[in-house]
């Protein structure tokens, strides 16, 4: 090959390299810009509303004035109920599918397909299901319990999938060595496999919380949208995302408080995520002692 041809070939490689670098950086910048834009808009418009009173008072005048305390309490209760059911069930299902069933058995395949189908169902359908099953059939009515359980059904496939991924990432060598150390299967699971799969399980937990906090459609049908302080889990209550939706779409003059509530929603999400990562790291670090 002549020197000129080599130079030409090199030149085309450089062009391709530059193009690929440009595309990758452009994608990165666009994503960051969108994120900063959304966050910036909420921050700029919402921060002025945030005050101690906003966090500790009940809403007044359909949410145009006052605070969001009952909304925060309802949101906390709904998310807690959701995760209290979805996490143990999700992790247990993942352990069963990954550790106890034959990978290519018909039963495992059926459950796996079911999980994928459940994950793809729109949240409004879950809302209708929750309304029929929890509100009417089980007689829970419009309540935080109905909302939490409906959300639990909705986030379950994500928790299961993330936990299965976490368990799959645990090398088989751990299973072999714990068996060779005469450890029972349950001991191996609790002391070796599940702690090693903790990053995946935490990812499932975060996905679950993210979806539960952001959900509106499923909750409209199940937990309702009254903005008073709930008297218990059987009482109706309004979640933060519904409050944002209601103020932004149905209440004229509610924009400022909608931004304020959205700001609180994002802060709550960040705090919960950080706590989950911190607790997960702590669990793993405890194994190192």
């Amino acid at each position, binding site marked *: 090959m002549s020197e000129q041809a080599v130079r030409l070939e090199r030149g085309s490689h450089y062009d391709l390299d530059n193009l690929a670098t440009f595309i990758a950086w452009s994608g990165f910048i666009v994503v960051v810009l969108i994120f900063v834009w959304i966050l910036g808009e909420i921050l700029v418009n919402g921060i002025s509303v945030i005050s101690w009173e906003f966090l500790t008072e009940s809403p007044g005048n359909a949410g145009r004035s006052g605070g969001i305390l009952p909304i925060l309490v309802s949101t906390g209760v709904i998310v807690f109920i959701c995760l209290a059911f979805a996490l143990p069930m999700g992790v247990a299902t993942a352990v069963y599918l990954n550790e106890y069933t034959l990978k290519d058995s018909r039963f495992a395949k059926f459950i796996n397909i079911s999980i994928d189908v459940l994950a793809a169902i729109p949240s409004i359908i879950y809302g209708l299901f929750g309304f029929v099953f929890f509100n009417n059939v089980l007689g829970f009515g419009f309540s935080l319990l109905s909302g939490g359980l409906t959300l639990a059904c909705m986030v379950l496939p994500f928790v299961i999938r993330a936990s299965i991924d976490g368990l799959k990432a645990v090398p088989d060598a751990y299973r072999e060595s714990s068996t060779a150390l005469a450890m029972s299967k349950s001991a191996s699971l609790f002391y070796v496999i599940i702690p090693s799969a903790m990053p995946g399980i935490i990812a499932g937990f975060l996905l679950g919380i993210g979806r539960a906090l952001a959900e509106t459609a499923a909750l409209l049908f199940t937990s309702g949208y009254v903005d008073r302080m709930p008297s218990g889990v059987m009482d109706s209550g309004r979640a933060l995302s519904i409050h944002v939706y209601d103020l932004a779409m149905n209440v004229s003059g509610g924009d400022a408080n909608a931004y304020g509530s959205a700001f609180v929603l994002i802060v709550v999400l960040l705090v919960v995520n950080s706590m989950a990562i911190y607790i997960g790291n702590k669990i793993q670090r405890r194994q*190192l*002692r």
Partner: protein
Amino acid sequence: MELLDRRENVCEMHAESVFNDSSRFMFCIDKLCLCYGNNMIIENVSLNIPKNSVTSIIGPSGCGKTSFLCCLNRLTDLNESCCVTGEVKVGDENVYSSSVNLTEVRRKIGMLFQKPNLFPFSIWRNLELPLKHHGVRDKEVIRLKIQNVLQNVGLWEEVESRLHTPALSLSGGQQQRLCLARTLILEPEVILMDEPCSALDPMSTKKIEELIMELKGNYTIVIVTHNIAQAKRISDHVAFFWNHEGKGVLVEQGTADKIFNYPKHELTAAYVNSGA
């Protein structure tokens, strides 16, 4: 085929000479067959493994050496499609009988794997976990046992000051010695070793070999190795496996001296001389 027919005679002769004194043996294996689904991996292996000595399992890749080793502590149970027939007796107990206490059998038979497979915990936790699982709760007893096994594998001075740091931060050789310590902490009678030095450098290999020589007075060691020179250095007894039409078969067994210096079977002679 003719060559392999002769292995029957070689193995039968040996079995007859040793069957009379079963108390000498840790394992008495009779007509062991192993299948994964419809594939037979090991066919009709009968072998007696003497107590307190090093028995090397040698042979080319794919002749079922590791699978054979996994049959001895029923690690084959981890694979649902695996089916084992025949008898593996440890003392008077058949490992494959339905009434066997598998936890007790596996506690008696420790295992060291090809690659160090420590748990992603601290050095201390790796050693404490099996002890606690087997009912040792006294903190002082645990501390003494951990110190003792680490001293036995020559690791105590190297890790004394960092027992609570991640075990996976140790070097490959140290990790393998820690795996050995983890196996020894349950006070087994047998240690199965599946090519324990294949991922190690020569210095670490030498240390493991020295440990094997120290341990063989108190433990029965069964080691799978591809390294014929290593087998010559450490073995008291040798079993030579061969891949016959996709199935692992035992061609010849005997003392290390007989197998390496006076092999009866042509395949054995060819194999052991290929590594000379």
